[in-house]
């Protein structure tokens, strides 16, 4: 399957998504803030990145911008995953080059479908 990096300052969120995505067969790494996320992107070379917006040191938007500016990482699909639902955040994420905007709470099959579509993987039957 794919290598996925989760960047979120909330430990519970990292554990929850790591458990869910690992169960789906992906190799998952996580980072607790933007700078660590950018470093992990360089070392782990993920196929897809999930990033929160509100984080200390570097916001999710800034992480997306830096990943998209770097020729080595610009082709990695980056999804914003957040509980912020305002339209201006969605527009800003798209303008920064995010591949998608996922709002929490999300339904597991929908999340799986979004990830599989981005990675061009076939949809898995539900367990």
């Amino acid at each position, binding site marked *: 399957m794919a290598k996925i990096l989760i960047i979120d300052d909330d430990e519970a*969120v990292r*554990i929850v998504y790591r458990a*869910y995505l690992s169960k789906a067969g992906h190799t998952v790494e996580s980072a607790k803030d933007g700078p660590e996320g950018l470093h992990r992107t360089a070392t782990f070379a993920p196929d897809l990145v999930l990033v929160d917006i509100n984080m200390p040191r570097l916001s999710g938007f800034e992480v997306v911008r830096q990943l998209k500016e770097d020729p080595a990482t610009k082709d990695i699909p980056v999804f914003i995953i957040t509980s912020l639902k*305002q339209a*201006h955040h969605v527009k800003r994420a798209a303008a920064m080059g995010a591949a998608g905007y996922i709002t929490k*709470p*999300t339904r*597991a099959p929908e999340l799986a479908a979004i990830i599989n579509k981005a990675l061009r993987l076939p949809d898995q039957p539900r367990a």
Partner: protein
Amino acid sequence: MLEHLTASPLFYDYLGCAVLLLAALNAAQILYLLWNKARVERAERRKDRLRRLTIAAIMTSPVPADSLRQPADEEEYEACSESIAGVLDNFEGEIAERASDLLRRFDISGHYRKMAGSGRWYRRCNAIDILSVFKLEENREFLLDLFEKEKVKEVRYRILRALSLIVRGHDDITGLEFRLSALPYLTPKYTEDLFYNAVTSLKTAGREEEFGFFMRQIMRDDRVLTLVKRDCLTACHAAACEDARALFRDYYAAYPEEPEILAACVKALARTGDLSLLPDALRHPHWLVRLAALKSAHFCREGLAEEISALLSDPNYHIRLNAALALAKAGERGRAALRAAASSGDRFAAETAAYALGQEAA
């Protein structure tokens, strides 16, 4: 006394004893700190392991309670409730149902309801905070009852927050506002958070229109504080209410002399892309309203350059500065207006225009 001590033939013995005693105390303190650090780290590792186990059980097992042990102590309850809260915050549907099922089977809610009866107010606060993240409707009556009995303000604020997360209809939201009015106004962030939760809970329940009804109901209600109305408007925008644009326009028209409400309406409406209030707000006699309009004026690009230029000579420093900054972002027309102001005879306008042009160039 000191002389008597120093003259004593045993003085150096006393001194040696004192030094030894102090050294022993220091060593004991260091040992205690090391032991405590190890204890806290061990507890954290245990909690972390329990959290991972619980989350793994929720993700993989249709009945997570079958593969886990009933929590036995406070640490285990904490780990279990934090895991469930994490899952509920992030997932809905089947996974969230499994987490809720675990909550019921282990009666975790019951444990924290008992803890909410503690004699120590901070333990009650902690219990209510945990109960609030479960968002269980079945806790409503318990929380309402607790609110009536509770004497400590800090706990009552938390109870309201827990109630805001389980708002399901008109009675709940008016009840929330009624109870909030019984407490001193806390902070804008708290009130906004409370009503933001209410809107999102109503959205989840498919009854978002109830918030619009509520807002219209309190619009002319003098009993409700202006600050609370303002925070409700901000919450309405933050939660992206369906009816928000019409509400902001109606409140703007209804409160021509309430700068707090006018400023909130101008800001919120501009962020939805509706700039219809800006020309009027830029001419408002109260500086807070003019400032709110200026802060949103960059959405207009070149559209309001003339109106903004006029504010470069405003008597209020914040207005002059923000007018110049807004013009710097308003395309070529804005920059031309700034250049003209920078060489004008109005010293205030010239200074702020020069500053904004400098900032833009940097």
